């Protein structure tokens, strides 16, 4: 967020370096049920982000001292693979990954019907294969689909998208350059049936008016992303039924 560049991020016609307008998100792609062993899984691409999520559970909670006798706990581990970023990342969790893991776990705990599985753990693993700004949003988006794929009871499927600001313009779904050299980054995740917010972070500098405009764009973008999440699941499991019925 604190980089400096002579690059023009948004030109005089309001077009961004990848040709998008301020309210356009990057192309989305979502596939459900992509791994064999995991109870549920999903693969998501948002722009150049490539993310894989897998779920195991509900299963016995390890470590045991974290068990909750009244409900299941959701343990999410977010990890960036070494080659996912242009400057190779040393393997292993860093402070950033640990923080992201925490806020994603908390977002998911709000939607998963955890009271149905006391003492259990629902383990969510997010691997970033390729990063281009917005990986925590892509990760949470994939994790939600993986949870539904695993048949875990939840109130809704959670989409996540970021808004932000670059070259003074409020933008939806920042790409890498806009994130590095822009003025604000606001990842957000919502429960689509109620528009409740389950994940929200902000860094940078925005006026109240700019922020409100950004949130509105992000929520709308989340709803679009949500349609694709649902579609990915229905496609994965309806196709076979349709073929057989003929």
């Amino acid at each position: 967020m604190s980089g400096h560049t002579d690059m023009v991020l948004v030109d005089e016609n309001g077009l961004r370096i990848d040709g998008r307008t301020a309210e356009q998100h990057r192309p989305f792609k979502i596939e459900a049920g992509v791994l064999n062993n995991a109870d549920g899984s999903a693969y998501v691409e948002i722009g150049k982000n490539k993310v894989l999520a897998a779920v195991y559970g509900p299963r016995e909670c390890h470590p045991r001292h974290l068990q909750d006798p009244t409900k299941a706990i959701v343990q999410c581990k977010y990890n960036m693979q070494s080659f996912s970023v242009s400057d190779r990342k040393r393997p292993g969790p860093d402070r950033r990954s640990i923080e992201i893991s925490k806020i994603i776990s908390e977002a998911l705990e709000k939607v998963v019907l955890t009271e149905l599985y006391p003492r259990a753990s629902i383990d969510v693993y997010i691997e970033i294969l390729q990063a281009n700004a917005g990986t925590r949003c892509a990760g949470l988006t994939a994790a939600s689909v993986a949870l539904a794929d695993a048949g875990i009871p939840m109130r809704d499927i959670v989409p996540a998208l970021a808004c932000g600001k670059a070259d003074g313009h409020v933008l939806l779904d920042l790409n890498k350059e806009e994130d590095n050299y822009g003025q604000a980054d606001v990842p957000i995740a919502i429960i689509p049936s109620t528009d409740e917010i389950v994940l929200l972070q902000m860094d940078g500098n925005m006026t109240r008016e700019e922020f409100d405009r950004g949130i509105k764009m992000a929520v709308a973008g989340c709803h679009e992303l949500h349609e694709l999440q649902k579609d990915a699941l229905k496609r994965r499991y309806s196709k076979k039924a349709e073929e057989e019925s003929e």
Partner: protein
Amino acid sequence: MTEIMSEIKRDHMLKLIDEGKRLDGRTLTDVRKIEVCTNVIESADGSARVKLGKTEVIAGVKIIPGTPFPDTPNIGVLTTGAELIPMAHPSFESGPPGEDAIELARVVDRGIRESGMVDVEALCIVPGEEVWMCFVDIYALDYDGNLFDAANLAAVCALKSATIPGEQYGKGENKPLPITCLPISVTEAKVGNALIVDPNFDEEQISTARLTVTTDDNGNFRAMQKGGRGSITLDELSLCLDRAVEKGAEIRKIIG
């Protein structure tokens, strides 16, 4: 839930193997279907996603300028790492690489290094000061046995299709990573008195020993690793070596 195999399944599998058959219909020497996709990760300088049956592995290569080792001042550096991430199997735990991941990385590394696959002498930028460093990072995504061969294939295919990013660092034009050969590993598991090639997860569970043999394009041996708490006889070793050359050549043809 812990992956304890029922004795019914164990007995059935052992009986089949005694008859020269396997639960998935393969012969004792059949290798599962291999699928390779390279250049799947743009942010990597080389990458490959490999499926060996249901086992799936991704490998990425990052090539970065760095300082050479003092005893080899004009030679590039090659480093291989592997992680058995928890998404790949219910029994994999989070945390730093354990002994299985470390052994896996070192065996794959040995095959690549001893065969001279990467022409490290061609990776010198400024003699004595700067060389290209190749980092190969391997992640298991879905584990159904034989990570050794799947990881080796992924690493080899990622290196084979890698590009030295000269332009990114202002050190000349981009060019392909110089490769001299393709080391291929073939792993066998000892189950009862039989040796089976390319064991899946269940077969590994009932095996007593494992042998991984890596050959180069000429059928010469470059690396070997025996694993497991059992033993193999000299005759069994001989059989494995023969098969490693034969199957190695077949696999080498598949990845081109």
